[in-house]
């Protein structure tokens, strides 16, 4: 086994009593002594601090000096309007492949003279190679290795972070700013992966512990591990790359059509021109055979990723599969998401999941399972 990588906060996690686990090649905290459920609830009620430094941070700069050129170049790899992202704003995106599948999902910020991307840890090497292969004629790709990434999530996050920076309180959801925090230049976005208001803060490696300790010293803030990060994002209906979306799922199947702006769809000024556009745009018009949906188990038994789905209690043909599932501490019930045939995707449709050899009823449910709490 190769050695696990450590983030700049590794020693802090250990000193806080975290249980460390391997995740995407990094030794990461899955939970702290508070425990997954209390960490989850603390994030929904107060503010949770997450170390997400394992994620990839990348700058893309146009050789021409015009950021619009970098945006248009990136549009050849993603079905989003990147040129339509205003300065100091951020947008959700995904890289597609020629079959219309999803290579990774990411955030793209327009930071004025460059684009700033945050990509998944497990995909970052492939993403960077992909961008270098396709964008290098027009853009310089700079991988940011000297910065950690912290997420501060939950309703009290604004109060907490505003004590350290006067610039963050006025930000709205998906705004980005550059601001000095405790003497360090930080790149802050008002976004996250929990369904709550909050921030993601890119901070120099050598200032990351100081920032984390300052935040953890505040009454509202507690450290939160990957366990609660997963239950929070699941209740929020957000996809986990590798579970809910991958190269075998298209954006239409994954119910991510909202993320594809009209200008990139058929009839739009910059329609197509991204990998798999023929497949994806045809599915926009004709629909896809299956769809990612929320699934509410009827009983108390959690239905986990990999659980087979059936149309009835007795039918022999599997219709789909749960891709993420578990107990939702805020919902106080099991919650799941997965793929079902489009004709069974209407909210309220009864389906069955085979749990330990038994067919258990469940209902196709609206997502998010908990209302989003963003500062619009």
């Amino acid at each position, binding site marked *: 086994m190769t050695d696990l990588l450590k983030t700049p906060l590794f020693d802090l996690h250990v000193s806080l009593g975290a249980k460390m686990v391997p995740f995407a090649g990094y030794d990461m905290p899955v939970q702290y002594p508070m425990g997954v459920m209390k960490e989850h609830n603390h994030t929904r009620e107060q503010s949770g601090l997450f170390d997400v430094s394992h994620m990839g941070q990348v700058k893309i700069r146009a050789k021409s000096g015009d950021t619009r050129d970098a945006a248009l170049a990136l549009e050849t790899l993603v079905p989003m309007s990147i040129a339509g992202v205003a300065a100091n704003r951020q947008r959700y995106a995904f890289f597609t492949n020629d079959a219309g599948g999803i290579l990774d999902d990411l955030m793209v910020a327009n930071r004025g003279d460059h684009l700033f991307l945050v990509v998944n840890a497990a995909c970052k090497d492939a993403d960077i190679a992909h961008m270098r292969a396709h964008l290098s004629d027009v853009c310089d790709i700079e991988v940011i290795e000297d910065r950690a990434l912290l997420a501060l999530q939950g309703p009290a996050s604004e109060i907490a972070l505003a004590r350290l920076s006067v610039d963050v309180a006025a930000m709205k959801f998906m705004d980005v700013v550059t601001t000095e925090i405790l003497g360090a230049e930080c790149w802050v976005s008002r976004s996250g992966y929990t369904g709550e208001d909050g921030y993601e803060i890119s901070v120099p490696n050598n200032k990351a512990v100081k920032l984390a300790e300052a935040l953890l010293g505040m009454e509202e803030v507690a450290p939160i591990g990957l*366990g609660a990060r997963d239950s929070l994002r699941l209740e929020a209906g957000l996809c986990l790359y590798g579970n809910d979306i991958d190269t075998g799922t298209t954006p239409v199947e994954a119910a991510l059509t909202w993320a594809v702006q009209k200008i990139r769809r058929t009839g739009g000024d910059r329609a197509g021109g991204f990998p798999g556009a023929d497949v994806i745009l045809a599915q926009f018009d004709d629909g896809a055979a299956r769809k990612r949906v929320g699934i509410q188990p009827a009983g108390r038994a959690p239905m986990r990723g990999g659980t087979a789905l059936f149309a009835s209690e007795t039918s022999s043909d599997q219709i789909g599969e749960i891709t993420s599932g*578990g107990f939702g501490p805020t919902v106080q019930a099991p919650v799941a998401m997965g793929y079902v045939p489009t004709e069974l995707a209407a909210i309220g449709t009864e389906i069955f999941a085979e749990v330990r050899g038994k067919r258990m009823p469940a209902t196709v449910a609206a997502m998010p399972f908990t209302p989003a709490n963003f500062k619009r």
Partner: protein
Amino acid sequence: MKFTEEHEWLRKDGDIVVVGITTHAAEALGEIVFVELPDADTEVAKDDDVVVIESVKAASDILAPLDGEIVEVNEALVENPGMINDDPQEGAWIFKMKLSDPSEMDALMDEDTYKAHIA
């Protein structure tokens, strides 16, 4: 009280034994959110899967510690699975069984041996 390598405890109560999971096991599982119990009056063989416990992290099977018959289950756990975290070695007993051969219990670990086992 006796203990198994599967982190169950067994306590004699007249001619039946009360079975639950240890404090160590409950802590390792994390917050328990679901318990599926067998029917009472179920004949079981040692190592049969008899109970499913799900925590916020994962599902785990509880095995029959010895051969015998399950005579009673703790229905209160179905409504309140978190009891297993709060009081694993007392109130949150899981099932009671009548052993086929009560002397088999003697071969299980005593408390000191179990403590050494998990150390």
